[in-house]
């Protein structure tokens, strides 16, 4: 293979440069998705580490069904998020944050389209709507 230009062959294994990437990492949580009004109610969400699925904090743990989610007053949700991040379960989750609910919705439904899609699945694939498989516990 005399014609090789493979730079990669000269630099395997390649891990050293990753260290300098770390400073570029932003928070997993997009600020725009963590906004809420001073009044109203919210639920707490995250993605599960192992499979990335969307989960919601319940009284017992974390569920794939937003219908099981524990509801917090917006005044209390920041403290609840801090508590959730401090639990052992948090090691099995990515990006814990709060989601404001739509007060006019019939059931538990997020205010924003983005979070409704996270809660109920891609609108273009109703067959992919979340189903309860397991809790984090």
């Amino acid at each position, binding site marked *: *293979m*005399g*014609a*090789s*230009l*493979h*730079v*990669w*062959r000269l*630099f*395997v*294994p*390649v*891990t050293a*440069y*990753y260290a*300098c*990437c*770390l400073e*570029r*990492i932003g928070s*997993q949580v*997009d600020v*725009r998705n963590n906004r809420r009004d001073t009044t109203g109610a919210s639920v707490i969400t995250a*993605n599960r*580490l*192992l*499979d*990335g*699925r*969307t989960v919601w904090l319940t009284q017992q743990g974390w569920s794939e069904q937003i219908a099981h989610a524990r509801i917090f007053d917006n005044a209390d949700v920041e403290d609840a998020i801090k508590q959730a991040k401090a639990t052992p379960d948090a*090691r099995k989750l*990515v*990006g814990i944050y709060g989601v404001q609910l739509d007060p006019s919705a019939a059931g538990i439904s997020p*205010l*924003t*389209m*983005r979070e409704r*899609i*996270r809660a109920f*699945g*891609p*609108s*273009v*694939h109703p067959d*992919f709507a*979340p189903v309860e498989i397991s809790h984090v516990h």
Partner: protein
Amino acid sequence: MSTDTATLPVGRYAYDQVDRTFLSQRVAQFREQVNRRIAGDLSEDEFKPLRLMNGLYLQLHAYMLRVAVPYGMMGSDQMRALAHIARTYDRDYGHFTTRQNVQFNWIRLEDTPDILEHLARVNMHAIQTSGNCIRNVTCDEFAGAAADELLDPRIHAEILRQWSTLHPEFSFLPRKFKIAISGSPHDRVAARFHDIGLVARPGPQGRPVFDVFVGGGLGRTPIIGVQLRDNLPEEDLLAYLEAIVRVYNAYGRRDNMYKARIKILVQALGVEQFREKVDAEFALMNRADYRLDPAIVDGIRARFGIPDLVAPADAAQNLAADRRADPAFDRWVRTNTHPHRNDGFICAVVSVKPDGGIPGDVTADQMDLIADLADGWSFGEIRVTHMQNVVLGHVRKDRLRDLWHRLVAAGLGTPNIGLVGDIIACPGLDYCALANARSIPIAQKLSARFADPELQERIGRLNINISGCINACGHHHAGHIGILGVDKRGEEFFQLTLGGSAGNDVAIGQIIGPALPEDETVDAIARLIDTYLVLRQGDEQFIDTYRRLGAASFKDAVYAPA
């Protein structure tokens, strides 16, 4: 040269044992990183750059794995591997992207090392499909086949792939960096909308020369690239590109990610000053170290399989007779084929956009079928296009009708290439963590509304591009009609742009007015198209009518009361 060149893959570079060993080591490395993350030894902040460098994103519902398809070329064995991954690890489908890659939307972190191992078995990977590095080099989907081509760009695309893969200087650029290369005078790669766009042609003594465009891009700040150099000799290709990326690496902004792309640097410095810096860097380089010797190029070329283009003398006549015999087939040939350099062959474009379907989505069964059809009709070679379709590049003309029958039976025979149904759409808010609005439902509604093939042909060439956010993965600025999803207090609105083009007549689409609510957008576009049909003169295409009349003629139609 290793001994494994007996069965070279047509149209792409044949890996050797060194390549395969590297990929195997890389998979083992990532497996260990995943294990450390699951065990809690790595935090998400520590792990995120590692997974991104292996193409693994965390999206709204699950992890998304983006698999590299170098310059859009793959073989039937690789497509079957993708089908296996879709079937085994995802939800039975994959998604072709506007950078000629493949994405899987429902991946589990714990499965990812096994998936990468499966990919490595067919010489595929997901390296540098994310991160602030040089991404997958894109290429003309008709490369090596098109009648209008002057030079097959895939050899140099492969050289650029090898040069840029894990390049130690360029793994932490200010932002991502995208290169496209074409060997045709007709720009089918959007060369002037790339960080670097290369247009190759034969030069003195038949060796290639390159026109180099720099600083183009879409996203938040759409800019048409400027020509930095013409007639760049082949031997200086790597040195000159290295000089460009070095200047960008040195002067590109790192304090503001929205101003970090090379296009912003070129605009800030001005093209002359940017060129001076590149030339200065170029002059300082030891060019002998970078010299792309013809022997090196020929060595890379020697690892590409070449199709044996032998067709019966009457192949073209047979195709003509088939077209006369079947109007539906004739329509598909008109819309879904491209002239081949060999008169006995033709390029067939497989539309991955059925009426009302999701642009770019392909089921595992369809992937397997495409692989079978590639084996039977096109030397096992498959091309993914930046329009989110698939090309079989070398189909014998007298066998085209048989291919079409098979495609139609599998729902892959929609005659809409280049027409209103051939909509480019990013995954949008249905999947993407960055998106503000859903792209796919708008594409589906438009596609269904204009499903009638006769109507589509009457409307003529019309590129509709939809992006779910300002990052512009759907290339909305380059669409004749561009649609950008925006968020207004958590609800979706859509802003229309008109007049964009990614070809030789490159142009950035202009915003026509205020964004529309989701439920009014499709009707507004339908009125816009109706207006064009009334205003067009003769055989004018939409873009011609728009350029003749300007936006005002269409604005009233878009904002007419429902």
